[in-house]
């Protein structure tokens, strides 16, 4: 089974915003770099990001700066973020946005020709640099077109299923290609995980097939810590109809441009449920909310722009109390702005072009004239690989993580727009530190026996002639996570979920996906199952341990915040007998400067 390995100083797994930004940095540092991605280049999930990239450039409101941004991020994360990461992010995001412009990105402009910034949930000032509602595409294409001239090797449509170690240090990875089923061995002095999220563990999700928690599980299996896995963000507005598109994202930008949420009685229900932490920052009336949307600096934001966790929960409550729309959602209305502006239809098409097309083509609905039906969809995981704030290195030497698969920046809830900036800020850092690590620490030894064992194990589902197929297990897991580990959680159901995941894991060990190795989706699903099961167990166990409601986690049996849990993160790691160990660890301490800022800005 021996084969010549591909060799790099730094191997980057994933080619979304974080992976590409990391690779560019690795290459700029003079280190050799290979990038492995599951799809074709430029198709990664970043392409779906719509609203924009949060960076306190202060072009639209000069009162904005990194200090306001960091306090917004910490408040949004309910003070469970790694404060140092939140600080680095707020300070470095403007430079990363401007750098993108120097590489060819074209953001929308202010009247005086600078980068325009838009309002978004939880951000005090207009802060999101954007390109209509296709900011992610602009970002990934800019990084792609810049990156292809940097001597980076791209290995497209390969899936990594195992990390290789050399005496506790990361040493490379094993991968297979989807179309032909060939294996590849990679040797690398450092590895950057940039694999994105875990949304496919749930039934209703805005995430693509790629989001199976690969990086989370690769790191966990290699002995790295995960944290904050209980915090899964349910975006308040996904499409609910037709059934085949259920879960597809409807950008928060719709609300940023004045869209309002209504129940079946036509009530703007969010006005009745404004949380104490945000009371002072939220509009009292529809009239004030509209003034905010059109840029009145004295107006406060409409309740539709409260944080995602809150809005999603309020929508669920409306649906549960019988005030939902016909297909089990609520109404999102942007067409109403015709009362306020004369050319509203043209304005909506210009500001939200891909939303206009998405509804027109998939639901046969004109958003400039009609209300949309929306409901919560699994969107993002705040939890991930526990990393050092400065370097992004995990608890495994030489193994780095950036973007969604890393944790620490967002705490209990991520603010919209903080993801694209996260990708760039920490992608750049992970790349720089990984390249430096590779230089300092020299060569690694590739353990051929363990590579062979990994490949043999991966082939097992193909060789088992009898056994259950993988799809049924995947569907059952997705139903289970949606039902019992979703937006509203309770101890008894979380316990049932943990037991059920255990049973599904046993079944997964015996799945059969007969056939050949060439394009065999059953085999791919069989290999994905391990990842989905690990991340699902981590979410359920961490959710069980956190006996409080905070941010994205809502516990029906503990509906309030708990002071004790406000001081801890939940760490998930593999124990000596391969069992999952879940424990509380103290939140990283906040510097005096940040403590002062938080007190000052509330």
């Amino acid at each position: 089974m021996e084969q010549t390995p591909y060799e790099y100083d730094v191997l980057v797994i994933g080619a979304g915003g974080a992976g590409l930004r990391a690779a560019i940095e690795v290459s700029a540092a003079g280190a050799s770099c290979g990038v492995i991605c599951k799809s074709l280049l430029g198709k990664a999930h970043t392409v779906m990001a719509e609203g924009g990239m949060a960076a306190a450039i202060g072009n639209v409101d000069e009162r904005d700066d990194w200090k306001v941004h960091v306090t917004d991020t910490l408040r949004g994360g309910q003070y469970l973020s790694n404060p140092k990461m939140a600080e680095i992010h707020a300070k470095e995001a403007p430079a990363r946005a401007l750098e993108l412009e120097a590489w060819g990105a074209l953001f929308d402009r202010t009247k005086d020709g600078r980068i325009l910034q838009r309002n978004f949930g939880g951000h005090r000032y207009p802060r999101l640099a954007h390109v209509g509602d296709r900011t992610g595409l602009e970002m990934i294409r800019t990084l792609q077109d810049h990156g292809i001239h940097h001597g980076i090797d791209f290995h497209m449509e390969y899936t990594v299923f195992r990390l290789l170690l050399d005496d506790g240090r990361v040493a490379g990875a094993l991968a297979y290609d989807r179309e032909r089923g060939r294996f590849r061995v990679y040797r690398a002095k450092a590895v950057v995980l940039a694999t994105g999220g875990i949304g496919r563990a749930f039934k209703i999700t805005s995430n693509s097939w790629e989001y199976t928690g690969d990086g989370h599980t690769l790191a966990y299996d290699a002995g790295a810590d995960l944290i904050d896995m209980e915090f899964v963000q349910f975006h308040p507005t996904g499409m609910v109809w037709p059934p085949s598109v259920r879960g597809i994202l409807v950008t928060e930008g719709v609300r940023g441009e004045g869209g309002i949420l209504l129940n079946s009685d036509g009530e703007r229900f969010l006005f009745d449920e404004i949380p104490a932490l945000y009371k002072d920052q939220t509009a009292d009336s529809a009239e004030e909310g509209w003034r905010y949307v059109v840029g009145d600096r004295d107006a406060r934001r409409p309740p539709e722009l409260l944080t995602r966790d809150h809005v999603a929960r309020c929508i669920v409550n409306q649906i549960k109390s019988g005030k939902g729309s016909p297909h089990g959602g609520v109404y999102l209305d942007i067409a109403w702005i015709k009362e306020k502006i004369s050319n509203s239809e043209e304005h909506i098409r210009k500001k939200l072009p891909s939303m206009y097309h998405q509804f027109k083509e998939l639901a046969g609905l004109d958003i400039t004239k009609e209300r949309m039906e929306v409901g919560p969809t699994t969107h993002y995981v705040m939890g991930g690989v526990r990393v050092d704030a400065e370097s992004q290195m995990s608890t495994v030497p030489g193994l780095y993580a950036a973007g969604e698969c890393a944790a620490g920046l967002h705490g209990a809830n991520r603010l919209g727009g903080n993801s694209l900036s996260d990708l760039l800020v920490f992608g750049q850092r992970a790349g720089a530190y990984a390249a430096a690590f590779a230089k300092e620490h020299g060569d690694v030894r590739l353990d051929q026996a363990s590579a062979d064992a990994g490949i043999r194990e991966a082939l097992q589902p193909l060789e088992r002639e009898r056994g259950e197929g993988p799809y049924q297990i995947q569907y059952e897991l997705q139903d289970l996570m949606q039902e019992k580990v979703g937006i509203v959680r309770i101890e008894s159901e979380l316990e049932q979920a943990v037991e059920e995941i255990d049973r599904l894991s046993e079944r997964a060990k015996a799945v059969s996906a007969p056939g050949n190795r060439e394009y065999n989706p059953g085999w791919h699903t069989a290999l994905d199952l391990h990842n989905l099961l690990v991340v699902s167990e981590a979410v359920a166990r961490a959710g069980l341990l956190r006996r409080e409601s905070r941010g994205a986690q809502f516990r029906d049996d503990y509906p309030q915040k708990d002071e004790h849990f406000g001081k801890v993160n939940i760490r998930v790691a593999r124990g000596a007998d391969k069992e999952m160990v879940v424990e509380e660890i103290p939140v990283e301490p906040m510097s005096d400067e940040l403590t002062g800022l938080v007190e000052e800005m509330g």
Partner: protein
Amino acid sequence: MAATRFRIWRQEGAEGEGGYRDYTTEVTEGMVVLDAVHQIQAESANDLAVRWNCKAGKCGSCSAEVNGNPRLMCMTRMSDLPTDRPVTVEPMRAFPVIRDLVCDVSWNYEVKKKIQPFEPRPPDAEDGTWRIAQEDVERVQEFRKCIECFLCQDVCHVLRDHHLHDEFVGPRFFVYNAALEMHPLDTGDRLSALKQDEGIGYCNITKCCTKVCPEHITITDNAIIPLKERVVSEFYDPLKKLFRVFSGGSAA
């Protein structure tokens, strides 16, 4: 809705002999072609290869030919197709098939690498930033909407029928060139390459590419024709030609 018949292209590998195979599956309200293909894959053709990703028309992965028309499968609603005959689904024909509906589009990635990259003018302001008018941004944003689905490449007869892949880069990369050439900050000059290496002259503006673009980019009118005009005025302008003769430059 009811049971619907499909004819789907199956092919083992690049060298394998391909052919249509018939399938039937239940089509329900709101379904798109990609849903039906996935359903067939789950029900009766576990090894049917199909490339996809976002399922929302944003990534450009699931390009194929549906009833002979180049389309994104995720944005083609079943209710828009005739029901009196089977729905034919086959891979893009301008590229080699890897397996079934998946084709090898790597040529496009190689072509892009050869195009002169973005090169901005020095920043306008002391803080290292630029000033750009929204209207200048908007002109180029149309081209930057491209999701690289390569349907325009698929339908272009210069590539599809005449196989001039070595001499002609295709509509996608004229749009890419246009995005760079008309970028308000760019200082590069790609006209000579467009004429010599990229074969813009082969395009006889039949607008097939524009018709199939899922992003509704006006490829021919807004990208290709203006580039052709620039090439003409650069290389075929008699005054410029005269100037080149006297200045010792090579005449076109």
